């Protein structure tokens, strides 16, 4: 029993470490309801293309909230640059929607989507 426990502890520890490090990956790639970021990215994109700026601002707010919920779950998985990149995209997206700049808003949104995709690597 003692020998079994002495083997079990390191094996269990290594499994927990893998789960902590890779848990974020499964969150990003899952299609569960908790992972609503891609959905909101699409919504904001549709709003910008239709130039519904008020709706775009509303959906961006929801996207921002979803991102703030997702961040603690992926922070042990993701690299800091990708997380900072998404934060910057959100800030610039907010400004471009406020300025009603369709081109800039779409560029930021696409970059944000790309950063999100890169988190899967």
């Amino acid at each position, binding site marked *: 029993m003692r020998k079994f426990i002495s083997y079990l502890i*390191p094996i269990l520890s290594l499994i927990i*470490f893998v789960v*902590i*490090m890779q848990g974020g990956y499964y969150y990003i790639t899952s299609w569960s309801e908790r992972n609503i970021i891609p959905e909101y990215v699409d919504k904001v994109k549709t709003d910008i293309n239709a130039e519904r700026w008020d709706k775009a601002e509303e959906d961006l707010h929801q996207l921002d909230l979803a991102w703030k919920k997702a961040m603690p779950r992926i*922070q*042990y*998985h993701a*690299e*800091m*640059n990708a997380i900072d990149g998404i934060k910057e995209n959100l800030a610039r997206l907010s400004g471009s929607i406020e300025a009603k700049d369709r081109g800039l808003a779409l560029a930021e949104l696409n970059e944000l989507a790309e950063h999100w995709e890169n988190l899967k690597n």
Partner: protein
Amino acid sequence: MNEGIVVIVRSIIGFFTLLIFARLLGKQQISQLTFFDYVLGITIGSIAASLSVDLSSRAWPHWIGLATWAVIVLGLQWFTLKCRPAAKYIVGEPTIVIMNGQIMEDAMRNMRYTLGDVLEQLRDKGIFDLNQVSFAVVETNGKLSVLLKPEFLPATPKDLNLTTQSSGLSTQLIYDGLIINENLKQANVDRLWLENELKNKGINHISEVFLATIDSSGSLYFDTYQDHIKQS
């Protein structure tokens, strides 16, 4: 992203992963390590350090790198254990640098080992006269093993026809004021006997004892917390 918390979590992962892998890789001490083992240790340590604080990259690739290095080392250890020619090829062989009192210049040149290195290591072993040396071998970890000529070897009890008693390994009975019951059983003694022995030595309570050991002949060694050292 709370960088502090991420670093703490990653450091815990790195620390314990390193601990587990180090235990897995064996009990070699630093002094027994070959140059390659030494470099290997530094590399694995460096990967663990990156895993811990390099937030610009993900923890996972570092962890995989750490695991890969550890597995390769483990694989090589197993391979060298099972295959002697491979062990010779991978770990190398001890090299004789002094044979029958003669310095082997060619062997030394092949190893890029200078006479100064040999003399330094001999002095380190307390040998200042080359005339005393019969054989000297550079081990794979770079240490020099020396066999002195018979006339310079220290006398042993056997040489003097003295009878000796084997003391065997001692067993700890008390550590830090606490009795180790498992070891009491193993040494075939009981608590009462131990307390009586201590009482005979003027110790009234076990908590006064820092360490008590018993050897295979049943003789008890103990050290109390109170040290009576005479000031000169």
